[in-house]
């Protein structure tokens, strides 16, 4: 049933639409409101159901260039996943170690991982950029960034 790519995507979207609709039907309603908070979500849910069905039957209209975009070597997918994992770890430690420390480690580590081998330049950028951004935000813009383990 889900043979073409469009059909598979439409299946995913249909599930999304149904879950959204189920949640929309659970929204509490109030008396005396002409148009309650559930009207628009319900409408959107049904529109998405209709559009997913439309996508199921629509022919593939992608250009070759668009199709080529999906041909990613396996190695690159792993690299992408790794970078996402780095960002996840970065966010996790941001408030614990502070902005400057986590960002410096992230910039140096991430660019090294992606193939940058000029260590001195990498280290300089990794230290100076977060420091500059931190000072700009905390001193000039008066917006606090996580201080973490550093004394300033």
């Amino acid at each position: 049933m889900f043979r073409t790519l469009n059909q598979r995507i439409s299946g995913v979207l249909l599930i999304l639409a149904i879950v959204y609709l189920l949640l929309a039907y659970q929204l509490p309603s109030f008396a005396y409101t002409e148009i309650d908070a559930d009207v628009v979500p319900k409408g959107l849910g049904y529109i998405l159901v209709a559009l997913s069905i439309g996508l199921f039957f629509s022919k593939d209209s992608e250009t070759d260039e668009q199709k080529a975009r999906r041909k990613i070597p396996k190695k690159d997918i792993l690299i992408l996943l790794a970078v996402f994992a780095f960002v996840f770890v970065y966010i996790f430690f941001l408030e614990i170690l502070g902005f400057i420390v986590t960002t410096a480690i992230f910039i140096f580590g991430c660019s090294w991982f992606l193939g940058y081998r000029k260590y001195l330049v990498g280290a300089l950028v990794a230290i100076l950029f977060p420091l500059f951004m931190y000072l700009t935000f905390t001193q000039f813009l008066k917006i606090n960034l996580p201080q973490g383990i550093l004394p300033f």
Partner: protein
Amino acid sequence: MNAIEGMLTGFQVAFSIEGIMFVLIGVLVGTFIGMLPGLGPISAIAVMIPITFGMDPAPALVMMAGVYYGAIFGGSTSSILLNAPGVSGTVATAFDGYPMAQQGKAGKALAIAAISSFVGGTVSVVLLMLFAPMLSSVAISFDPPAYFALMFLGLTAITSLSEGSTIKALISAVVGFMVVTIGIDPQTGTQRFTFGNVNLLEGIDFLVIALGLFALAEVCTLIINRKDLSFDNKHKLGSLKISKEEFKEMRGPMTRQSFLGFILGVLPGAGATIASFIGYITEKRISKKPEEFGKGSVKGLAAPETANNAATSGAFVPLLSLGIPGSGTTAVMLGAFLVLGVQPGPLLMTDRPEIFWGIIASMYIGNVFLLILNLPLIPYISKILKIPRPLLISLVIMFSIIGVYAISFNTFDLYMLLLFGVVGFLMRLFSFPAPPFILAFILGGMMEQAFRQSLTISNGSFMVFVESPIALCLLILGLLSFVFPMIGYLRRSKKTKQG
């Protein structure tokens, strides 16, 4: 306040030391980010928004506008030098700009691009100055049904004009609208789709969406393409001089495309990309030597460059006077306005003249700055293309993280950012256009409000949308914007069947 007084107020803002400084920062940052292949004006604006927190709205918005047209201006450099457009509005620039560069005339191509961008940008600011107040005075009488219809038209236009499948663009818009329903409903106070999570009560911030769907998704593409597109120094720029004959050739396309580009920019859904393609095609069609196009034609380079910059100013007309963006980029601009507590719309001109006219007046100065940046300084500025990709990728991620953290101060939003980065990348992979998503996300809240207000006025009768003549016309236009591409599609498929 009449237009002349307004313009004087505007110039006061734009010519203050603060004004000049922020225009310069805006266009400089815009040029840099626009030049980097992969990073578009949406990312440029979204990354810069946190810098404006706590700033006075007038200079802040002057700067943000500068980032926007600076990015379109700067995008042409990488189109010409690398054949890798920095922004989608400069794709057509590469058609003739890159062949010129290959012939050793890169300097000349950059100069032509800079001058036509300057002319397109400046002529269209004059038009913006004339038309935005006119539209404001008409829009002041719009009632909720008319506003709803106007936003509906904006959404349908952007979906039908998006590249690729219309149904995918529609799905993108509907999902964007769904995401904005998360949080407390502003009219009844009902919690919708929050799953009891405190962090979701106020909904998802638009910066999370803009930086996730655009900046982070663009980073993913950069990671995959990190090895190609290095700009080597062997590429000589050559002289920047333009001969008299060449200047004569440019005159026609520059005049025509300034006006055409502006009009296309005003229309909902069109914008710089479409304007530049239409500009290129019309000039090719009316040219006596169409065979020169694509081989380094002066006209073929001047046309899209004039048109895309003219369209950028044109796009400010609906944004400033109606408060309704017509494209993904102006939707993010609207977000920048709202972050600073400024609601653009028909009242902006009378309530906050310093902002309304300040932005317009600053564009004259911004365009002059851009001309200076892009003509004598271009050999130095183009060195930014040599930034090693791995460093660039890490820095863009850092900017996105700061942007979101500085607005929410919690890591929950950062995880959401990461999630939308994945969504944005998957959308790119499967050819779902992202601009309809962001436009629907920005317009969604306002649309729902206008929709419910209209129905409350009419006691629930849908006739309210048909009884107001303005609303009716706009709704019909919105529906037509779907029907026309469909007729074209059916005709084409009939022809291919017959052929």
